[in-house]
């Protein structure tokens, strides 16, 4: 493993912290019932988005699913437009027509996120095919969860990506659950998820999704390989969702997972973990971090004000955009 440049470590930390703070603020505000759409928070899983996207350039592509806030932000998606979208405002990244489950920012190559599980995996593979057909040397990353490999669409996509050696990075965030259903009721216990992808003839690796440095380094190899025409790679990162599947709250009360399981994973918080090493290595000081936090607070509050003050789309927009001209 090559040693990490301090600049990169700082950026990774900042990226994760920003995602975390945005998500926590959304969770605080959600009960106001002004964001009237389902939100799937990724608090606890920030390292995967941050570590992978740090290796993507602006004109590389990324797509995602229902849980896309982190991917959108890590890819460089506009924060104001995202918050406004959650508030259903015309200034939102989808003009209010999408909501949290339909984020997009074409200007930074975030091609879109939609919530039908598995469906965007095929679309991402198609985007990669399109770039190759046009001799554009872009890499496409697709983010999805552990349950996504249960969908036929994933396998059809994997087979085609392997067949055509497409520059796609399959990024699986294995957070052990699909809604409230554990892996044990959905997949056989005698094989790992990355082995399923390997069966398709795709280079496949597994990593600690709560160790952003490891994510960064594994992703870097895969992305460089794809860029050089080496074909697709499948990356499985074990991580954990702290909050309820959909919505702002904790959910131990539901009983499908124990509080201690959640607490154990929280001890392995990817942000805390990097913070400690950055402090010990003197790459960041507590003051640096305080400064980061207060800058981020300012940025986030500004985005919220922007969103709240923005107008709702006008009634006549209902019937606009059904067909492209």
């Amino acid at each position, binding site marked *: 493993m090559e040693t990490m440049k301090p600049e990169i470590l700082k950026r990774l930390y900042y990226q994760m912290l920003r995602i975390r703070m945005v998500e926590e603020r959304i969770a605080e505000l*959600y*009960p106001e*019932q002004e964001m*009237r*759409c*389902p*939100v799937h928070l990724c608090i606890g899983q920030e390292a995967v988005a941050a570590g992978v996207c740090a290796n993507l350039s602006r004109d590389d592509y990324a797509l995602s699913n229902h849980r896309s806030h982190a991917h959108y932000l890590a890819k460089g998606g506009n924060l104001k437009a995202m918050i406004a979208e959650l508030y*259903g*405002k015309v200034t*939102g990244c*989808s003009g*209010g*027509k*999408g*909501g*949290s*489950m*339909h984020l997009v920012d074409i200007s930074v190559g975030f091609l879109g996120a*939609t*919530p*039908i*599980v*598995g469906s965007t995996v095929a679309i991402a593979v198609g985007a990669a095919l399109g770039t190759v057909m046009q001799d554009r040397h872009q890499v496409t990353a697709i983010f999805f969860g552990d*349950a*996504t490999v*249960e*969908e*036929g*669409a994933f396998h059809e996509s994997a087979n085609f990506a392997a067949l055509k050696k497409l520059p796609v990075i399959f990024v699986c965030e294995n957070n052990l659950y*699909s*809604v*409230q*259903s554990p892996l044990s*009721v*959905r*997949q056989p216990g005698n094989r790992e998820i990355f082995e399923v992808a390997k069966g398709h003839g795709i280079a496949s690796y597994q990593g600690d999704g709560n160790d952003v440095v490891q994510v960064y380094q594994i992703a870097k190899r895969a992305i460089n390989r794809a860029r050089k025409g080496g074909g697709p790679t499948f990356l499985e990162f074990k991580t954990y969702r702290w909050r309820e599947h*959909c*919505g702002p709250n904790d959910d131990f009360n*539901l*009983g*499908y997972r124990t509080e201690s399981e959640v607490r154990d994973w929280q001890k392995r918080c990817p942000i805390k973990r990097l913070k400690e090493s950055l402090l010990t290595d003197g790459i960041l000081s507590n003051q640096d971090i305080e400064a980061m936090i207060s800058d981020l607070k300012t940025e986030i509050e500004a985005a919220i004000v922007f969103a709240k003050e923005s107008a*709702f*789309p006008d*009634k006549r*927009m*209902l*019937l606009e955009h*059904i067909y492209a001209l």
Partner: protein
Amino acid sequence: MTNRELKFFQAINEAIDQCMARDASVYIMGLGVPDPKGIFGTTLGLQQKYGSKRVMDMPLSENGMTGVAIGSALVGMRPVLTHQRMDFAILSLEEIVNQAAKWHYMFGGQMSVPMVIRMIIGRGWGQGSQHSQSLQAWFAHVPGLKVVMPATPYDAKGLLVASIEDNNPVIFIEHRWLYNITGHVPEETYRVPLGQANIIREGSDITIAATSHMTLEAMHAAAILAKENIRAEVIDIRTLNPLDDSLILESVRKTGHLVVADTGWKTVGFGGEIVARVAEKAFSYLKSPPRRLALPDCPTPTTPALAKHYYPRAVHIVATVRQMLGISADDAVPDEPADVPLDVPDMTFTGPF
């Protein structure tokens, strides 16, 4: 016990419970079926009672699991497959339409596929374009499928029992905004036969035929119209396939006017079938052009600012009826005051699902 009241979701739960108790071949599976939320409460307690073999969670494999359900039905089981949203079931149309719907016919009637596929539709709270579709028109178009849309707790239980006991694939469509509706539900097991519409309010001035949640909107509309001495007859279609149009035809022969209110899109939607049947079979009785109330031909917008203009409600039915009867010149409705949220079934609903 004649005034025993249950909520719609409890009626569904009781129907499944009683069918599982009566017949060991009945089992239920679906994403989250045994989970703590129990599909809006409709499956709560079942796994504790019948075990994890008969009350199963499943992989995120809608198409494959539909085939699995079909195969189990071919060898003697009676699966109840549950989808939290109809949109997800689109992945399984091949198994439903090519296999389940045709197995009985294409093998000359030797085998049958007794299975129920529950699909949940809904509206509101920013579900957006992919989590809100109401595609009953597709299923009603397919011979070999039965399609049921209950609107009351009583029918929810009776139709679901009849569906589970039916020897054909039944698409059982539940509207989320009905789950908290309360109504009379007898405790004993009873059946509401498939293929029969129901007159839920008698009237002589106009016929309003409706599906699922639109039946409630139609009843609200009828109540408003009654204040103006317009006596609307409201027919709950209940079973869309096979469709029994006799009640609707009879009613139109009496009233001479028809409004169809459906939860789906308008064009090539289910409402069009009712209008076409009436135009074909009761043409000479019609005193005014029949009308359809349905979703505009447009995907579902997420923002409440647009969603509130997307869904037809009682006020729209009322305005349409007024226009048809020549009471008002057009069917315009006043925009709702902004402070009334139209994206929740009731004030207890605080999102996100």
